[in-house]
C-alpha cells in the first residue's frame, strides 16, 4: 500500500521542489499608455508551497465548486474526499480544463505596473484531501455494497467522468466510513475521525474521487484535470477542516468567487483588503515574487493569521490594467456561470458577473471552523497593484532638471524604500543598497 504523504483534503498540495519563483521581468508592450501603467509582472498562485485553488460560483442557492488540482505524484495514489451538503448526481459533475483556472489566476493576480518619468522640463511624472489508493476499489460492486452497508456506509451514487471514478457516500458513523474507505485502499489519516463525524452529524455526504488509470492512459494525459461539482443548498461555505487534520503547517487557499451581485466576504472571519496602489522601488521588478510573498506574510502577521484577504475584486466586464486576456464567456460558462447572455463574447457584459479573489493562509488553530460566505452589494473595485516609477534619464542642465535630480528623485527613492520596508519587514539598509545599485534598462542604455 502506498505511503500517506498528504492530508485528507478536498485540495491538493504542491511539492516544494516543484515551486518556481516567478520571473518578474516580462515583455513590456511598447505602445501601452504610460498613464495607466504597464502591466509587467504578476504574483500568481505558483508562489506558494502548500496551495489550493477553488472556483466558487454562486447563484441563489446553487453552488458550483471547481477544485484545481495540480497533484504531481503518481495518479494511482491520488484520491479526493470532500464533504458536500447533498447527494451529487452524475450530471452535477464535470471535468474542466486546467487552463481555465490558470487563466483566472493570471487575470486576477496581484500585478506590478511601471511608469517612466518624463522630462521634468515638460511635466513631472504622472500621479497616478488527499489519500493514497491501494487495490482497485471499484471491483465486484454488489459485494462491496454489502460490505459498505455492514459498516453503515451507503454508496449513494457511483459513476465515472473523464479520468475519474466517483462515488457519493452517506455514513452513519465516522468509524464505519473510515474503516470502509481504508479497506477500499484509501488511507484516511488519524485525527480525521472527529471531523468526519461532525460532517456526518450535520447530514453531509462525501464525494470521493479517484483516478481511473486505464481511461487516463487512453486520454494520453499525465496531469489531472480540475473537477467541478454542483449542488443546491442554502449553505454557502467551503469545508476546510479536513484539510487541517494532518497538515504540517499553514496552507494557502485561493478562492475565485464568481457572483451576480457583488463582492464576496466571509461572515465568520474578518475579510481584509491587502495594501495596494503603493509606490515601490523599481528594482523590485526583478524580485516581484519575493516581494509579494513577504508582503503577504507581513499582512498575515498583522492580522494574527485570522483573516481572509481580498487580492482582487472587479466587474468582469472590464479590467485596468489587464494582467491577461479577458476571460471569455465560454470559459465562465464551463465554470458554471450559466446566467451569462451571449454565446461567443470575449468577455461578459458589465454588471453581469463579479469576481472576488480571496487568499487565505490557514491552519487548525487560527481557522477552527469552515469558511462561511455572504455575497455583498459592494462594487468598489480592488486589485493588488504595485507601482514602480523609472527616473527620467536626461542631464541636469536646467533649474527644473536640477531640482528633479537633487530633490524630487532622492525624496521619492527614500519614500519608496520606507514603504517597501514597512510592507515586507525587509531591512531598510539592504533596500537602500539595492536601490542604489539598480539601473533601469533606459539608464543602462545611457551609460
Amino acid at each position, binding site marked *: 500500500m502506498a505511503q500517506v504523504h498528504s492530508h485528507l483534503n478536498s485540495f491538493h498540495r504542491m511539492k516544494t521542489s516543484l515551486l518556481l519563483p516567478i520571473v518578474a521581468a516580462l515583455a513590456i508592450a511598447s505602445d501601452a499608455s504610460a498613464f495607466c501603467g504597464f502591466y509587467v509582472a504578476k504574483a500568481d498562485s505558483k508562489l506558494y508551497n502548500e496551495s489550493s485553488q477553488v472556483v466558487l460560483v454562486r447563484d441563489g442557492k446553487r453552488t458550483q465548486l471547481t477544485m484545481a488540482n495540480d497533484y504531481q505524484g503518481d495518479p494511482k495514489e491520488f484520491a479526493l474526499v470532500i464533504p458536500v451538503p447533498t447527494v451529487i448526481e452524475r450530471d452535477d459533475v464535470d471535468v474542466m480544463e486546467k487552463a481555465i483556472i490558470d487563466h483566472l489566476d493570471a487575470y486576477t493576480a496581484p500585478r506590478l505596473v511601471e511608469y517612466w518619468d518624463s522630462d521634468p522640463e515638460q511635466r513631472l511624472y504622472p500621479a497616478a484531501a488527499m489519500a493514497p489508493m491501494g487495490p482497485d476499489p471499484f471491483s465486484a460492486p454488489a459485494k462491496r455494497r454489502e460490505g459498505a452497508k455492514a459498516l453503515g456506509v451507503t454508496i449513494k451514487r457511483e459513476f465515472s467522468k473523464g479520468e475519474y471514478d466517483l462515488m457519493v457516500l452517506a455514513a452513519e458513523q465516522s468509524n464505519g466510513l473510515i474503516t470502509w474507505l481504508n479497506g477500499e485502499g484509501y488511507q484516511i489519516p488519524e485525527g480525521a475521525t472527529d471531523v468526519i463525524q*461532525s460532517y456526518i452529524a450535520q447530514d453531509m455526504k462525501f464525494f470521493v474521487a479517484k483516478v481511473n488509470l486505464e481511461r487516463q492512459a487512453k486520454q494520453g494525459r499525465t496531469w489531472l484535470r480540475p473537477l467541478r461539482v454542483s449542488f443546491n443548498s442554502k449553505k454557502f461555505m467551503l469545508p476546510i477542516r479536513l484539510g487541517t487534520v494532518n497538515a504540517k503547517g499553514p496552507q494557502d487557499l485561493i478562492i475565485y468567487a464568481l457572483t451576480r451581485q457583488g463582492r464576496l*466576504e466571509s*461572515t465568520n*472571519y474578518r*475579510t481584509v483588503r491587502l495594501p495596494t496602489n503603493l509606490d515601490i522601488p523599481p528594482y523590485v521588478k526583478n524580485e516581484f515574487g519575493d516581494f509579494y510573498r513577504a508582503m503577504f506574510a507581513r499582512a498575515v502577521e498583522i*492580522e494574527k493569521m*485570522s483573516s481572509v484577504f481580498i487580492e482582487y475584486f472587479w466587474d468582469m466586464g472590464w479590467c485596468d490594467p489587464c494582467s491577461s486576456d479577458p476571460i471569455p464567456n465560454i470559459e465562465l460558462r464551463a465554470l458554471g456561470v450559466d446566467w451569462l447572455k451571449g454565446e461567443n463574447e470575449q468577455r461578459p457584459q458589465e454588471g453581469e458577473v463579479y469576481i472576488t479573489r480571496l487568499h487565505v493562509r490557514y491552519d487548525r488553530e487560527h481557522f*477552527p471552523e469552515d469558511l462561511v460566505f455572504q455575497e455583498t*452589494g*459592494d462594487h468598489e473595485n480592488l486589485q493588488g497593484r504595485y507601482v514602480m516609477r523609472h527616473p527620467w534619464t536626461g542631464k541636469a542642465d536646467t533649474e527644473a532638471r536640477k531640482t528633479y535630480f537633487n530633490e524630487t528623485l532622492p525624496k521619492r527613492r527614500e519614500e519608496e524604500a520606507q514603504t517597501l520596508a514597512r510592507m515586507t519587514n525587509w531591512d531598510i539598509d539592504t533596500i537602500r543598497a539595492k536601490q542604489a545599485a539598480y539601473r533601469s534598462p533606459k539608464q543602462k542604455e545611457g551609460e
Partner: protein
Amino acid sequence: MQDPRYYQIAVLTGLLVYGIVALDFEVVPLQAVASVGGVLVVQWLFSRWKGAPWEWRSALISGLSLCLLCRTRDIGWCLAGATIAVSSKFLIRLGGKHLFNPTNLALIVLLLVSDGSVWVSPGQWGSVAFFALLLACVGGLVVMRAGRWDVALGFLFCWALLLLGRSWWVHEPLTIPLHRLQNGALLLFTFFMISDPKTTPDSRAGRFLFAALVAIGGWWWQFLQYGTNGPLWALAALSPFVPLIDRILPGPAYSWPKFTPTSTPSIA
C-alpha cells in the same frame, strides 16, 4: 445617577473611529455624516411636529450604531436608514412604548428593500478586537446598572448555551463554538441593541423570556436556515411580541435617569 447614554455615545464613537482606522471598515466620512446628521435632523423634525423637547442623545446613539453595522456604498441608503430608525420611534408605538429598536428595524428594512445594496458584515470585527470590545461592553454594564443588564446577559447565556449544545450534538471541538462567540458584532448586538431599555419587556421575567426567544430565533435562522445575522432578524421578528409579554408578565416601564421621557429616547 448619570445618564448612561453619554457612556454609550463615547463607546460607540470610539468603536467607529477604531473600526475605520484600524479595522478598515468601509465607512467613508460622508456616510458617517449622513447617518449621524440624518438621525439628528429627523429627530428634530419629529420633535417640532410632536411638540416634544429636542432630544439628541438617543438619536445620536441610533446614528452611530447605524454607522457601525450598516454597510453600503450609497449615501442615499444611509439617509434612508436614519429616517426609518427615528421615524419608527414616533410612528410605530403601542401602549406608550415604541415597538422596535430603531437601528434594528432600519437595518432589517434596508436589507429587505435595498436588493443587496445594503449588507451587514458580522465577521468584520474579527476576534483580535474582541477583548477590547468586551471590556468596553462590560464597562457599559457597570454604568447601566439600573438599566437592562439582565436582557444582555440573558441573551448571551442562551446564545452560548445553544452554540455549545449544537457543537456538542454535531461532534465539533470546543474551539468552534468559542470562535463563534468571540465575535465583535455579537457584543455590539448584545450590549447596544437587544439591551435597549425602551423596547424590552418591563418585567425581569419578561426580559429573560424575550432574551431566550431572540437567542433561539437567531440560532434557528443562522444554524438551521444557514442565514446570516441571525440575532438581528430574530430581534426584529420578535419585537412585536413585547407588548404581549408585558401583558402576561407586567412590570414598571423604564425611563432614563434624570430625564423627561416625553421624547421616547432609545439605545442604539
